[in-house]
């Protein structure tokens, strides 16, 4: 039963209109934000997450930048330190969820079908599969897409935008909405830099121009280079959650 969204209730239509009567046209003023419902559900999620003192990250990127690989790495390397839970958003398959399950962490797959982003409603139900009180970090892997997930608050603490060196360094300038919405940018696949003409300094400049407060990590999930700084940052974020108690 869904308390926040009321989705278990059948839609209540009032059908006893007076069909004989014919009103003139009238204008009804509404003034409602189109994302209001999502924002309301996101706020409810956020409250549940904060009661559980859980750090919640929303991972966003273009397809194939390495979100799942980063999660696999992080979950295996920090297994002894934190307990994780993972929500996997994908349009079709459960491949990514299977990869996460192999690390031993609890994972739940959300298939969005034609939908190109996760929304707060899906996430609210998705976390029903986890014991939030026993979870330090909830990772939400959003659908690979740099446009839509920027507008849909899930109730996360922070958005982490993952960009890989095989993409153009001008991604942050082309998708400013996403890089402005994110607090963290990870430049992944630095092991490939010698083979590419990806200009990492330029990438940083573009990103900081759209969002001067962005925290940036450069790392390679393949070689492991740069992962330590990311892990240290994660530990610090978890620390601030626990201190609030």
């Amino acid at each position, binding site marked *: 039963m869904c308390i926040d969204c009321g989705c278990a209730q059948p839609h209540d239509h009032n059908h006893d209109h007076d069909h004989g009567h014919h009103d003139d046209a009238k204008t009804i*003023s509404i003034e409602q934000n189109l994302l209001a419902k999502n924002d309301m559900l996101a706020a409810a999620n956020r409250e549940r997450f904060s009661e559980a003192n859980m750090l919640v990250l929303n991972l966003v990127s273009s397809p194939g930048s390495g979100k799942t690989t980063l999660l696999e790495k992080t979950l295996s390397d920090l297994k002894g330190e934190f307990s994780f839970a993972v929500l996997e958003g994908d349009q079709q398959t459960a491949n990514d969820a299977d990869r996460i399950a192999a690390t031993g962490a609890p994972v739940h797959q959300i298939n969005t*079908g034609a939908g190109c982003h996760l929304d707060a409603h899906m996430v609210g139900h998705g976390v029903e599969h986890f014991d939030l009180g026993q979870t330090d970090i909830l990772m939400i892997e959003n659908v690979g897409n740099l446009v839509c997930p920027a507008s849909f608050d899930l109730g996360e603490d922070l958005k982490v935008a993952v960009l890989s060196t095989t993409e153009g360094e001008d991604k942050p300038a082309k998708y*400013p909405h996403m890089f402005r919405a994110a607090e963290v940018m990870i430049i992944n696949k630095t092991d490939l830099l010698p083979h590419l003409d990806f200009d990492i300094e330029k990438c940083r400049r573009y990103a900081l121009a759209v969002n001067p407060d962005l925290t940036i990590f450069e790392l390679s999930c393949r070689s492991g280079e740069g992962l330590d700084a990311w892990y240290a940052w994660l530990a610090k974020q978890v620390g601030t959650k626990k201190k609030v108690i």
Partner: protein
Amino acid sequence: MTINPTEPYVHELGITQSIVDIAEQTASEQNAQKVLSVTVEIGDLSGVIADAVEFCFEACIQGTRLADSKLVIKRIPGHARCNDCGTEMEIDNMTFSCSTCGSYSLQRTRGEELNIKEVEIE
């Protein structure tokens, strides 16, 4: 209409669906048979493409009380104020810096709107 999930319009489809849902609900509450028009406000910095909403609207209104309705989109240009020198300026999604002093610290003041404003019913 078949929708290709890799198409960027899918985002606007979700937004458009909420427009239609809210208008339908309002019509139902008012015991109205028909929605004649729906007015929405879409800011240029909202991340939503107004043309795409228009396109999706045609598909979403089939078989609803909005079937013959008109969608009125009021676009709102982006505006920002510079936190450093106070200049007010018009901006787009690609504007990073103040047109007067070059500062990156811009406060967006208008253009992120994404609202349904009114429905005309009968």
